[in-house]
């Protein structure tokens, strides 16, 4: 690419901020970023936990080992983790949820598999996959033997494969990402430029209270915006701390760089909501 993928501009934010934001929206527990020794990262949401990879040049398996161990120690539900690379501009929360659902729907039950591996357009996708955090020692053992490819790991554990039919059986995913573009990564500048030229996702904006009556107008409005901050701009609101947002009725957000996805509904509310 000629530049670090993590820092690539993405609709006013960065690719890493975008990908971590998507994962953050999809999971209940914390999100970890594993960085190479000395690697500088762009600004991230304050909830993101950054882990240092102690060894350079060991490939994704080294990052996987560090990330799984950190997840096992910190996460609220430490048994499984979604693992992905940073170069996935179209990663979608529905995809993340569909992969994690491959471990089973009962969060208290012992998973029947160690990994959930999507296969899309004939390619295995180990860097948009789910892993049990208990695999961390095995990954480290394989690294010690010089086995640096995820395929080595997958050969050693119980894997549930999700092919395209299986993935699209998830109705939420099929509705928002029927082409499974969540796994599309950008390896070349041309890939990035092509991805960047695509229109921003179409989202619905709702404004409430004085945000609606203060010249903004009532009722839903459809805009194209990749972040909360941009959506606010488009409806004439300054996302400046006096206004907060909730995406699809979920967490209250004050960070304008939180990524939006096609089909999202963004509710802007006054920061003084409440009695």
């Amino acid at each position: 690419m000629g530049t670090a993928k993590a820092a690539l501009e993405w609709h006013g934010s960065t690719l890493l901020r975008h990908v971590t934001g998507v994962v953050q929206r999809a999971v209940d527990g914390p999100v970890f970023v594993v960085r190479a020794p000395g690697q500088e990262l762009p600004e991230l949401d304050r909830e993101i936990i950054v882990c240092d990879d102690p060894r350079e040049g060991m490939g994704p398996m080294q990052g996987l080992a560090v990330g799984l161990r950190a997840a096992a120690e910190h996460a609220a539900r430490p048994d499984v983790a979604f693992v992905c690379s940073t170069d996935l501009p179209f990663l979608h929360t529905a995809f993340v949820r569909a992969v994690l659902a491959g471990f089973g729907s009962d969060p208290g039950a012992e998973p029947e598999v160690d990994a959930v591996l999507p296969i899309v357009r004939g390619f295995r996708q180990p860097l948009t996959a789910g892993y049990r955090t208990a695999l961390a020692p095995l990954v480290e053992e394989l690294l010690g033997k010089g086995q640096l490819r995820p395929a080595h790991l997958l050969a050693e554990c119980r894997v549930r494969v999700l092919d395209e039919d299986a993935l699209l059986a998830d109705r939420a995913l099929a509705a928002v990402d029927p082409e499974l573009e969540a796994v599309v990564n950008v390896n070349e500048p041309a890939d990035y430029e092509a991805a960047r030229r695509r229109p921003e996702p179409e989202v619905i904006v709702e404004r409430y209270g004085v945000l609606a009556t203060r010249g903004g107008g009532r009722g839903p409005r459809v805009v194209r915006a990749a972040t909360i901050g941009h959506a606010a701009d488009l409806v004439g609101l300054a996302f400046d701390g006096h206004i907060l947002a909730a995406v699809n009725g979920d967490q209250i957000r004050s960070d304008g760089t939180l990524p939006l996805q096609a089909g999202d509904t963004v509710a802007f509310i006054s920061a003084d909501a409440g009695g």
Partner: protein
Amino acid sequence: MHGYFGRALVVDVTDGSTTALPLGEDVLRAHLGGAGLGAWLTTELAPPGVDPLAPENPLSFVFSPLVGTPLTTSAKFAVVAKSPLTGLLTDALASSHFAIAGKFTGYDALVITGRAERPTHVFITDEDVTLTDASGEWGMSAADAEAAVRERSGRRWRVAAIGPAGEAEVRYATISHDGRHAGRGGLGAVLGSKNVKSVAVSGRKRVTLADKDGVLALAKDLRQRSFGPATEKYRELGTLANLLAFNAISTLPTRNFQTATFEGAALLSTEELASSRSVAKNSCASCSIGCEHIYAGKDGKKSRVEYENVFALGPLCGVSDADDVLAASARCDELGLDTISAGGTIAWAMECAERGLIDAPWLRFGDGPALLRALDEIGSRTGLGALLAEGSRRAAEQVGQGSAGFAAHVKGMEMPGYEPRTLQSMALGLAVNARGADHNRSGAYEADLSGDRDRLAGTADHVRAAIATEDRAAVIDSMILCKFLRGVFTDPYVEWADLLSRVTGWDITGTELQETARRIVLAKRAFNLREGWTPDDDWLPDRFLDTPLTLPSGRTATLPAARLRDMIDTYYEERRLDAQGRPLLVATGTETTP
């Protein structure tokens, strides 16, 4: 002494006798006024274990050092007593000229005790106390009784009165003045149990201010700040602006907390009603914010509309017809009912009726006329109202059959319009607050809605945030200022200490005021402990712990009992309580409780 008179007046309505109770500077500085001083007075004057509806239960109208100053929103008073709804301490605040006229009688608090032989008005001036026959007003609404007293006795009188629900000792009856209500906890029933229809005040006494010019300068500055963005919501739309926002974030309790979104929310929104039914905007006495939004229903009856009364009589009961909800709100005002407890108790009954647990086939979610019928029966304690007038906790105890699990109350007080599963700082605040389920003594929802933490989780950080809001409320309710001003203060304790220092002449610091906040919170808890509170009272109903909510995002909001337990234990630890939630050592002014 500046800012205070240093005394309370105790009126025994049994025989009309009065006693002046000295209030030393140590007591006043430690408890300030309002809710804080009321907690001290009730601890001092209420016999331990007293029946809330017995003559011996004192009911106090408590003023504050700021009343009568030009500080915006300072014309407030607290009514404080042991509650017939919770059996614990309750304080309810209201804003009106009653506060100013009451303080001008020359007392920092007016305490009513005893029981009159017949319906009675109590007239209090700076010179004497007179009891007069109220038989002619018995049965009237509070507003009509107030008007009748002023018509007969003169407009200089400011009159706090009860409606028919207070006379019938409905356990969530209100005390009202000038359309403002001391709403929660059934204080109207306490006054009704004393056969007191109204308390009328008029006086000419004035307190001195330690630094008059300083107070004037602060008042001017505060007034200017009250016009800023921090109060815009209240000025422009009022608290009802919360309704659609809460609906959007799955925080709008609906059909007795079975869901947290309401399909009819838009029909009840301020955005809708303001354009079709708004008839006036008003301000409380001495207030520059002007948050009162008056709407009229199709019957022409006007009602001051807040988020809480619309939530409780609308979504909570499944009613989406705006005219029905406005009529129900007006009916609560006429009867003198707390809208939150009335709506909460009726919503519980609607669910009971739909499950076949009570014989009331006419009572169904979404049925506006049935809601109005239920209110009337409660106000008169007739039919189903005899049961519902007791509040949801007692009613569920009578009905049994598992109905207690979905009676949405804490300590007997029905829950306000904040869904605890999706606001988990608030869940803790609701569970542990001394008054019961309450959004004014614990504003922990602010922490959940700040965007600073995961509102679907409950951690030690959430607990600390809840404690901070509880402490701020303790001070602001004791000074007293309106909470709608809270957003204009950038360094609240320091700024509040400055206000108090200039009024009283005391060299109060922000740090001292933070200690005062903690003292007041613990004093309430200590009173409750004396009156039979147990650790089981710091808890939430099963519904919130057993039943998850699904958000539009697909995520599920759960509040497992173990998480709530952890949060409560952390609260006890942070508050320096023992493992059972008991204050280790609370100086309430004259005694030390366990």
